[in-house]
């Protein structure tokens, strides 16, 4: 496992693996994050993983940057030891107004709506990282046939729950926000709820598979969630 490690301002260190979007590289990121968390070194404030980099924030009053750089350099990390993560099955309605960019995706990919849905639901996606918005999961990798560029002009407001495509990634908007991903559907499942102990539904390394529902089921699930009747465990497949 090779990585480059460098100072990032006075209170942070950046560890960079091969700079590509790739499952095996992301597994190294995840393993590094676990190894650093388990080391629990004095002065380390938090460890933030991304696609192919890990950032370490530290308190310079408690540990010297140079010492921490050396310790990380010597850390033994084994990506093979990673546990199998949970698989979440997320319902998505790909119909009507929920799928604002379906026509455009249809045009760019030359796939029918049915094929787009079938392909999007077929793969099991890996959560590369959480970023951009609280709880926004970057999922991948998309089949090449589904890869489309971002919209030429970003929307000022993409509704919460919108499921979008951008390059080799797919993702779900956890809140209403501006954004440029091509929207092909919407899920009633909240990706983020500030009342949960851990507010983001997904974490790095979690696996996700989407399944198609009609708008009737969308509204039923939405109602169950609003009334507190929804069983979140039903999203997991072990």
């Amino acid at each position: 496992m090779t990585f480059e490690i460098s100072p990032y301002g006075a209170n942070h260190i950046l560890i960079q693996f091969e700079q590509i979007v790739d499952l095996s590289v992301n597994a190294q990121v995840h393993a590094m994050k676990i190894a650093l968390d388990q080391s629990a070194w004095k002065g380390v404030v938090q460890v933030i993983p991304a696609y192919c980099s890990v950032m370490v924030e530290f308190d310079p009053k408690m540990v010297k940057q140079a010492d921490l750089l050396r310790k990380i350099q010597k850390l033994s990390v084994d990506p093979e030891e990673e546990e199998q993560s949970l698989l979440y099955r997320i319902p998505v309605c790909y119909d009507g107004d929920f799928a604002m960019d379906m026509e455009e995706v249809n045009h760019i990919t030359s796939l029918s709506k049915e094929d787009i849905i079938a392909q999007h639901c077929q793969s099991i996606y890996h959560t590369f990282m959480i970023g951009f918005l609280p709880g926004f999961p970057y999922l991948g990798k998309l089949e090449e046939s589904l890869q489309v560029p971002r919209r030429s002009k970003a929307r000022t407001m993409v509704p919460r729950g919108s499921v979008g495509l951008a390059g080799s990634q797919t993702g779900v908007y956890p809140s209403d926000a501006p954004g440029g991903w091509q929207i092909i559907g919407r899920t009633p499942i909240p990706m983020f709820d500030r009342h949960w102990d851990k507010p983001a539904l997904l974490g790095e390394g979690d696996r996700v598979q989407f399944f198609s529902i009609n708008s009737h089921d969308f509204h039923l699930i939405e109602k169950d969630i609003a009334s507190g009747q929804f069983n979140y465990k039903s999203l997991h497949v072990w």
Partner: protein
Amino acid sequence: MSGRLTLHIEKPGLQTTVQDYGRLGCQEQGIPVGGAMGIDLYALANQIVGNEDGEPALEITVAGPKITFEGFGLLAITGADLSPSLNGLPISNGEPISVSTGDCLAFGRVVSGCRAYLAIRGKWPQPQWLGSVSPLNSAGFTENLLRKGSRFTIDTSLDQPRKEISVKGAFPNLRKAIRVTVAPESKYFEGAIVQLLDQEHMVAHESNRMGIRLEGCLSLDQKHEIISSPVFPGVIQLTHSGQPIILMADAQTTGGYPRIAVVDKRQLGQLAQLKPGDKLSFEWNN
């Protein structure tokens, strides 16, 4: 001794929020740090009134609020000089000021700076989320964004005595150059960094609590794409057009623009005092 001070918000001002140190330790869930933009001045306001470190305070931006009081209390304002007055008479930043029922605190024109901090002695009632009172729109936590007609009551009965402290620094010093240091992509943007350090820059209008944008563009030595990677307040990103953005308290946790430099954490408070149109310069910190 028990006591209470109720604040009636007659006018909220441009953007008045309840703030503290923000949320550290949950950035891996995409949650910004948030918190007071000018940490030192926020902390100083609490010190002057004798509060425990980390007690909430109001962050007041450019156009201040109008607040009437009910009960008895002690307040202090630090940071920007936004012409504060009590019952129409001017009051000074950095001094403890007693208020009682019927008193009205208002703000006028901006004399210097951009953000002021108002601390009030006592225990604040504001709801917390993940250990912080700071509002975060993208997470639906907007309780502590002040609105016209909102009111809250502070429990003013504190046991700890108040120490008389020096108030030097109640006003920000805006003259110094902002110190910056190395970022992950610095080595790819030597030309842009030279321009960043040699020129004077102006704060652009599209600046806010997420980031300060600078007018004009730096020359791009090369187009350098990065795969989204962690960022934090103080990081200077260079957009594809060459416009620099200095990330501030509410910044997102990951970004895809190259990072050319990082502002020294202790100087973020100075940046918090810059308004659109204000000038700034940078120096390299070895």
